[in-house]
C-alpha cells in the first residue's frame, strides 16, 4: 500500500506541493501533458515524514497521505 496517493485527475499542477514539502518528495515530469502543464510525480516517497502539509495545503485536494501506524497520532 503506497503512502502517498496523488490524484492526477484532480491535480492542476500548481506546484505548491513541490515548493512546500520539507522533504523534497515531489517533482514534475519533463514534458507538458495535454492538460497544458508538466504533471507532478511523487519522486521520493520514502523521504516523506508524513507531516501532512501537502495533504492539507494542496488546493485541489489531490494528495492523500496514508498514515503508517507509528505516525498515526502525529496530527491528532
Amino acid at each position: 500500500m503506497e503512502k502517498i496517493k496523488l490524484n492526477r485527475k484532480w491535480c492542476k499542477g500548481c506546484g505548491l506541493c513541490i515548493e512546500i514539502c520539507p522533504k523534497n518528495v515531489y517533482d514534475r515530469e519533463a514534458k507538458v501533458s495535454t492538460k497544458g502543464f508538466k504533471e507532478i510525480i511523487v519522486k521520493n516517497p520514502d523521504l516523506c515524514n508524513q507531516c501532512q502539509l501537502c495533504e492539507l495545503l494542496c488546493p485541489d485536494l489531490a494528495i492523500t497521505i496514508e498514515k503508517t501506524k507509528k505516525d498515526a497520532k502525529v496530527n491528532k
Partner: protein
Amino acid sequence: MSKIKITGFGGQGVILAGEILANAAVMDGKEGSAIGSYGSAARGGLTSSEIVISNEFIDAPFSEKPDVLIALSQDGYDKFVYTVNQNGIIIVDSGMVSIKPLPKQYELQAANIATSEIKSPVVANMVMLGALSAITEVISKTALINAIKETVNEKFVELNLRGIEFGFEKGKQIK
C-alpha cells in the same frame, strides 16, 4: 466573406489568435469580426473563436459553418469538424489531435514546433495563423505581422512573429 473558427482549450491562446486574425483583416482594409467563447469553467475548458472576414458590412458575425476550421485540441476538433462548410478546409495540430480521415485537411504539429523550434509552447496559436496565411487567401502574412505589432505586448512581439514565420513556412510545405 470568409468564416473561420479556431478551437482549443483554455490557455492555448485561441481567443487571442481570433482577434489578431480579425484585426489583421481590418488592417488589410477589410471588415473583420471576432467572437471568443469560453467554456463553462474558463480554465482548461473548451474555447473557441469565430472570425468573419468580409469586404462589406458583416451580417451575422458567427461561424456556424466555417470555411476554415483551425483545431488545436481534440475536444474542439471533435465538436466542430463536421460543421465545416462543404468546401471548407481544416487546419489541425496533429500533435494534439488524433484526426479523422477527411479531405481538405492540413496537418501540422504546431505545439511541437512552438516548443522545440521557438522554445515557447504558447505560440502554437501563431504557428497556426502563419499556416493559415500560407494555405489560404484569407489573410496576408504582412497583415498578421502588423496586427501582432499593434496588439501584442512589446515583450512578446518577437516571439509571436517567429510563430507566424514558422507556421507560414510549414504551411507552404503542406499546402
